[in-house]
């Protein structure tokens, strides 16, 4: 299975290596660097690279390449999924997953990697099991450890490893018992030049933060479960109960976890929360281009559209942009040609707009494609699909927990072609 792991930063330095079987020389990464050179963008490096004796499978996250070395046949998704799980774990432990954080905590990283794989096969990837084995570093704990000489490493087999609910450890205790659920929906859409929707779909997740004492058994039911077309669950959810009754019944992991991700059936029409009026033109022969963009709310069900961020990759020929934003601030990076406009909240009475001119390279021909516009936004207290949680019940424990549910809609991959 997974033979070795190399961590490579944006400038091409291997800053961490770990071997689970015999040592593979880091010169194997040269093949990776070759592929990296060939790729125009960092994202374009192919995830699977064959070399004469090994195969390199890599993921790119937080501008770090995680390159796994494989020696024989293994499902590539297996490796990819595992690498992502490693990144998630690092993030969970250190808050951020950056080169600096990994270098600062290199011992914990090594201990983690040692526990996560045995002979290249995943051993413990559940966050709660790992946290019992290796406690996450905090300032307080570091201080206590230096004084008392105790360690970050557990001596016992984590309780989860042997239980039927490996995601939950036993003996959890809280003074405030609370369970929060966030229903977050994302709209993926492509809007064409004329403003009509080419494709739009809604993907959602329910993220939970459950801090409950003991072994609670929760059920969560929806007002309109029929909306959910395709779902994937955290392993704790009892699948058959869902099949039969459309109720989520589960013993939750302790802490933060993703309970459910779903896809809303495509028959439903997707409400598009904003519209974009755009006029981006380049004239033949002149070194000037016009840029005119106005945003407005469309179907928002009376909720405010917040945290709007517009970004667009302008054509290579654009040298500079001279724009005027009626609201928020805009930046244009002359190297990457990326235009970003941080709009903020849309006020329906006074629509935000960004107008002005672009300077083109003298003598360059008119770009043949207008840039696409990517939009990010947030709408609080609403799930755009109309999904509603009916009730949350707890069984098996005697106390009354505090329950909370929050809805939010975001733009996922929301693109407007111009």
């Amino acid at each position, binding site marked *: *299975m997974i033979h070795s792991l190399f961590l490579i930063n944006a400038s091409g330095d291997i800053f961490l*290596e770990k071997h689970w*079987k*015999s*040592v593979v020389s*880091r010169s194997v990464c040269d093949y990776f660097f070759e592929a990296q050179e060939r*790729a125009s963008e960092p*994202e374009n490096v192919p*995830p*699977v690279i*064959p070399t004469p004796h090994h*195969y390199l499978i890599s993921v*790119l996250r937080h501008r770090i390449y995680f390159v796994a070395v494989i020696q024989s*046949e293994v*499902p*590539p*998704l*297996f490796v*990819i999924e595992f690498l*992502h799980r490693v990144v998630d774990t690092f993030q969970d432990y250190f808050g951020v997953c950056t080169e600096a954080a990994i270098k600062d905590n*290199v*011992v914990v990283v*090594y*201990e983690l990697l040692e526990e996560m794989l*045995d*002979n290249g*096969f995943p051993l413990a*990837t559940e966050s709660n099991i790992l946290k019992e084995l290796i406690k996450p570093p905090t300032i307080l704990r570091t201080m206590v450890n*230096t004084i008392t*000489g105790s*360690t970050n490493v557990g001596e016992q*087999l984590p309780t989860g*490893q*042997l239980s039927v*609910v*490996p995601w939950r450890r036993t003996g959890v205790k809280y003074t405030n018992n609370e369970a929060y659920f966030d229903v977050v929906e994302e709209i*993926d859409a*492509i809007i064409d030049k004329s403003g009509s929707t*080419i*494709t739009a779909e809604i993907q959602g997740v329910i993220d939970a933060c459950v801090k409950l004492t003991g*072994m609670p058994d929760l059920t969560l039911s929806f007002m309109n479960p029929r909306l959910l*077309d*395709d779902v*994937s*669950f955290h*392993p704790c959810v*009892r699948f058959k*109960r869902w*099949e*039969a*009754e459309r109720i989520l019944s589960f*013993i939750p992991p302790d802490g933060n976890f993703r309970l459910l991700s779903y*896809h809303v059936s*495509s028959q439903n029409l997707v409400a598009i929360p904003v519209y974009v009026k755009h006029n981006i033109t380049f004239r033949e022969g002149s070194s000037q281009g016009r840029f005119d963009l106005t945003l407005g709310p469309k179907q928002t069900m009376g909720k405010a559209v917040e945290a709007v961020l517009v970004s667009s990759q302008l054509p290579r020929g654009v040298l500079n942009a001279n724009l005027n934003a009626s609201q928020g601030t805009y930046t244009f990076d002359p190297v990457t040609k990326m235009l970003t406009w941080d709009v903020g909240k849309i006020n329906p009475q006074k629509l935000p707009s960004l107008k002005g001119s672009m300077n083109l390279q003298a003598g360059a021909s008119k770009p*043949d494609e207008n840039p*696409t516009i990517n939009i990010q936004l947030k709408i609080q207290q609403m799930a755009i699909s109309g999904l509603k949680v009916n009730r949350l019940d707890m*069984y*098996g*424990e005697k106390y009354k927990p505090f329950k909370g549910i929050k809805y939010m809609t975001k733009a996922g991959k929301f*693109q407007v072609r111009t």
Partner: protein
Amino acid sequence: MQQQRFFALRLSRCVLALADQSARPAAADPGGGTFPLFHRASPPSSVLRNEDLKEMLESNKESLKLEAMKRVVGLIAKGKNASELFPAVVKNVASKNIELKKLVYVYLVRYAEEQQDLALLSISTFQRALKEPNQFIRASALRVLSSIRVPIIVPIMMLAIKEAAADMSPYVRKTSAHAIQKLYSLDPDQKEQLIEVIEKLLKDKSTLVAGSVVVAFEEVCPDRIDLIHKNYRKLCNLLVDVEEWGQVVIISMLTRYARTQFTSPWKEGASFEENNEKAFYASDSEEKSERTEAEAYVMDPDHRLLLRNTKPLLQSRNTAVVMSVAQLYWHLAPRHEVNLVTKSLVRLLRSHREVQYIVLQNIATMSIQRKGMFEPYMKSFYVRSTDATHIKTLKLEILTNLANEANISTILREFQTYVKSQDKAFAAATIQAIGRCATNISEVTDTCLNGLVLLLSNRDETVVAESVVVIKKLLQTQPTQHSEIIKHMAKLFDNITVSMARASILWLMGEYCDRVPKIAPDVLRKMAKSFTAEEDIVKLQTVNLAAKLYLTNSKQTKLLTQYILNLGKYDQSYDIRDRTRFIRQLIVPNEKSGALNKYARRILLAPKPAPVLESAFKDRDRYQLGTLSHSLNSKASGYQELSDWPAVAPDQSVRNVEVVEPVRARSSQRFSLSGPASSSESEEQSSEESDKTSSDSGKSSSGSEETSSGSDSQQKKKKKTKKAPQKKSKTAAASRCYLFLRGKMVADVYSRASFQVTAPSFGPVKTYELLHHMTGKGLSAKYHFPRQPCLHQPGMVAVQVTLSNGSDRSLEEIHVGDRSPASLNIHCFNTIGEYEASSWCERLYLNKLLPLPEQAPPLPDKPLSLNNIDQAKKTCTISISLPLVHDCCTLYNTRPLNPRAHAQTHTHTHTQTQTQTHTDRDTDRRGSTLKLSIAGD
């Protein structure tokens, strides 16, 4: 004390070894070879630092040692050589500080191979640790011991693995499965012995072990398919509860297994011929019925079991699991069931970029064979400008595969946007895609061609070049009057610099020179001028063009041709000189050329077949989907071929597992054959129950008609044989049926909980009667000890009580009563509010104190088939736990739970019959109080 002395001794040995090493500095460092660069380049300061690390490691202070070890690990992580610290580090292997110890392990595993002699010093520590009572320490000792790649300790490792494989802790057994692979890679000669261990571990019933042992199986002896037979059904049933990584390997192994064991579900009427013969002799009416039966393909129940048990995993959050189920369905399921996986695969497209890449590759292969599968999701494959290039190309590939008459206009409109993309490589790929659509769908060929001609005036060179190449191919498929396009291209010829495009235009000129009789010689004239500066491919086509023109229009082009042939004769490239010589002999008549000359025209101007524009994923289906080989389109090392379906299924009975019969007479085992003396009533019940479950299972899995009917018939068989005195007479069918029911159980509503409850059915379950339904006025109670650890507290034992409410009243307030004697500790479950008689309550699991949902009576509209159920049989299973005097962890591993202690629990179950409503509760209390008295044997 003794230990200290031991260390002192070892220390002196270490020092000796160190001295020895420094005596021959160059040769004694085999590790130097691995990182010669770092070794040599290490500045003197780092040597100094290592020196002080050594001092720290040899100090008495724990904290200093730990600090030093942390720095050493930092060195290892950076790939720096820290091997000279080996003697200093290895001394700390027996440290009491667990973190220090772990870090030493990390170091040891990294450098043991280079410093074999010194590494041997640590072995005894591990051997001792293997005997520790703490399972975690045993496991980590085995992990490290097996990771030390020193050939001399192979026998020790072998011994340790064998011992660990029989360990009580499943965690240690899991580690031993991993160790098998390590030992195998170290010394392949141990294969035979290791296979024995694998065989033993395959029988393990723990979900923890299953995944790891299958990995070991795949690595060591993937061809020993016979080891799987007996464990096939168990693996299928365990699958849902195995950890996700194990699921992936088990599923791919079972895919391979199933392809060798079952007949193809794709062929319709596989058994048709055989039955036809019978029908010949039968009467007409019989023949009819026989025919219909024969035409239906009957799937092996084990085959169905696999498909059914993997289906829920499509909902897994782990993308690798979803993909492996998808490939299993693709390779094993009947054609109409494969569509099940579409939605889930499309869902994966929301995941990370790398996941998308692999999934799209697989979808591309699938969509070639089965367009219908992904057509409804076409819009999910629309390209976004933010996608990475390789994702874009794959999406394009899929869209092209999905194109048909109905959706081509939408797709072409979408392609028009892509052609304008700033990413020119992608735009070029789009043009090729348009070309493919044009050849595949004849309705749009003209539209596409016109569109492509428009693109010829595009400003970007790659776009133009790609269009030329594609137009050339399209023209070839449609050789009717397209002289306009050829003329247009000839005009553009001067501006095109991409050699492939120039060559294409030259070829077109030559091929259709009769359509453009005036232009072609002029193009040749231009080419003669620039011949020497052209690329090879263009030169070759120039020579071709000259030859063709010489044959058709020799008056105008004779001199030009000769000039070009002369240029070619002295070209630098072999190919061109060769081609020139060949062409000259072919077209210019002289005495030597002989007969060939006459055929020159027919050779050069023969009508040529149009090229077929095919998908690059056309032949990828020779590899199993989801594999590395499929992704690379070349065979990866260690790839196991997926065999073809056997024409005749091998013997099914190899998969039968002997179920050990209970000796007791009063054992009414659920879902398994009962002993000879069981009363007819309990027999009745069990068969009824299984009836209902089988019909249920038929419902739950769509399109498994034949299965439920199959199990029905087996049900009958079972009834026939149920009086059989011994297990030997049990038919294969019956036992298969038994497994079916188990399969259903595993995937039950409370999938995890119910699995645990039914787990004991691998072995016998002794059920004891507590209350007969006659004495209980319709209420009966039975109990048994489920064979799994108590989740609540390790010192407790689970007892599962099954209440069957045969009365027409509801039960209310089921709870644990007074606990006496006081020494007993019973984990109370919450009161079960009401257990109605009028509505069916399937099963209630207070599974080992994971207290159960209180709402005992599920909603009345619960989609359970009420009509299939005998209203009188309503079962409610609850379990309580009681403490055991003996250490409990010894009980729950391999052997059946056998509470030796005379533990007694007194459970008062207030049964309460109630007329109709909840309000009557207090007034109408005429229920009896049960006293459950449970004693172990």
